[in-house]
């Protein structure tokens, strides 16, 4: 019944997630999103530091109409780097954060996933799906 309260982020996260770099092109990112069903991918610089997070939403947002051009330059936009669309300073969580708190943040920020950081290093990613899975496990009859 109260099993869920014992869980922390560490218990539900995906460890060692797939990451990308700031200079990865949007067309490569799109392929990653197509092959893996991730909502967001952590962006690490060449020192392995988390510098951003790029989501499907960020990718879509790059293609909306703007006053710069009557038609979005679809092909050219695909050749832009991840750094041009990623969100900087993403909200991160610690592995020892209670999962109940993380659930609260997911709902309040309407975020689909958070990078999990420990001592400045990325150690995992935790998504809506991971939390749902933990809920299912802890409430199984």
């Amino acid at each position: 019944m109260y099993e869920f309260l014992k869980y922390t982020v560490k218990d539900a996260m995906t460890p060692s997630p797939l990451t990308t770099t700031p200079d990865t092109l949007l067309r490569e990112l799109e392929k990653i999103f197509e092959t893996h069903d991730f909502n967001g991918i952590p962006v690490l610089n060449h020192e392995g530091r988390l510098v951003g997070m790029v989501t499907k939403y960020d990718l879509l947002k790059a293609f909306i109409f703007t006053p710069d051009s009557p038609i979005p330059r679809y092909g050219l936009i695909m050749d832009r780097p991840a750094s041009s669309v990623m969100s900087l300073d993403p909200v991160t969580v610690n592995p020892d954060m209670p999962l109940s708190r993380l659930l609260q943040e997911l709902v309040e920020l309407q975020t689909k996933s958070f990078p999990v950081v420990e001592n400045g290093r990325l150690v995992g990613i935790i998504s809506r799906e991971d939390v749902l899975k933990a809920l299912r496990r802890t409430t199984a009859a």
Partner: protein
Amino acid sequence: MTTLLYNHPVCMEHDMGYGHPECPDRLVAIYGALKQPAFAALQWREAPAATLEQLTRVHPQRYLDRIMAAVPKDGLRALDGDTALCPSSGEAALRAAGAACAAVDEIMAGEADNAFCAVRPPGHHAEPGRAMGFCVFNNVAVGAVHARKVYGLDRVAIIDFDVHHGNGTQAVFEHQPEYMYLSSHQSPLYPGTGRSSERGVGNIVNLPLPPYSGSEEIRNGWATLLAPALRAFRPDFIFISAGFDAHRLDPLAQLSFTEEDYAWLTREILAIAAEFSKGRVVSTLEGGYSLSALAASVAVHVKALMEAPALAAQAAARIA
């Protein structure tokens, strides 16, 4: 009396490359609609090329030279990220501007009541010295200046209901109180101009509409802002920059006009033309990129033009 329909085959040869939404098929769709029996009374006219004299009233000679020199022998030549010339584009652009002038001549000679110019490239983004946004020469501006300069008209109005703001037309006329430019358009959207605060010398009237605006917003805006300004101006001649890309099916913007809105707007404009301008209206094609919506919208627009004299007579009879 008569509605004229200006066109020319070369306007269908202007082709900016595979998949470009401002494509020859737009005219194919329009001609398909206007060849129906309901439009049998339309008088089709071949659009003549604009003369140097007509063009240089709006565009500097060196700009014309630059454009004509840029017309390629084959392939495409880019003018900006979205606008290009093919070998037929020079002549198409000349005839697109010439159509508006020829329509003015016929109407002033009493040969017709009004006219629709089914031509491309469109014109309202073209500034005096700059091609942009699929536009090369500012067709409607060339026609408007022709009407004033050749026929000595005092006041000429241009109504632009294309979903994009006509930055070029505004740039041509913003310091000339003999002209009024009135535009409804989506904002934010390309080209980024057209704020309500842009008022020229009191002769520019902008109605920016937020995305997803539709019938209610445009009809309110017309009734409260555009129509009162146009009436107060008492135009001797009215031009329409007739873009149909504010239609709910258009892929290049997010307004939600319907065919019925275009019919309504056209009748509203014609009522003011009957009151102040002896019914004199020249409408020239700008945007509209859903082929089916474009054909249907042009059809109701031209139908309204054809019915204008009858409507005006009825209105006059009611007043008498």
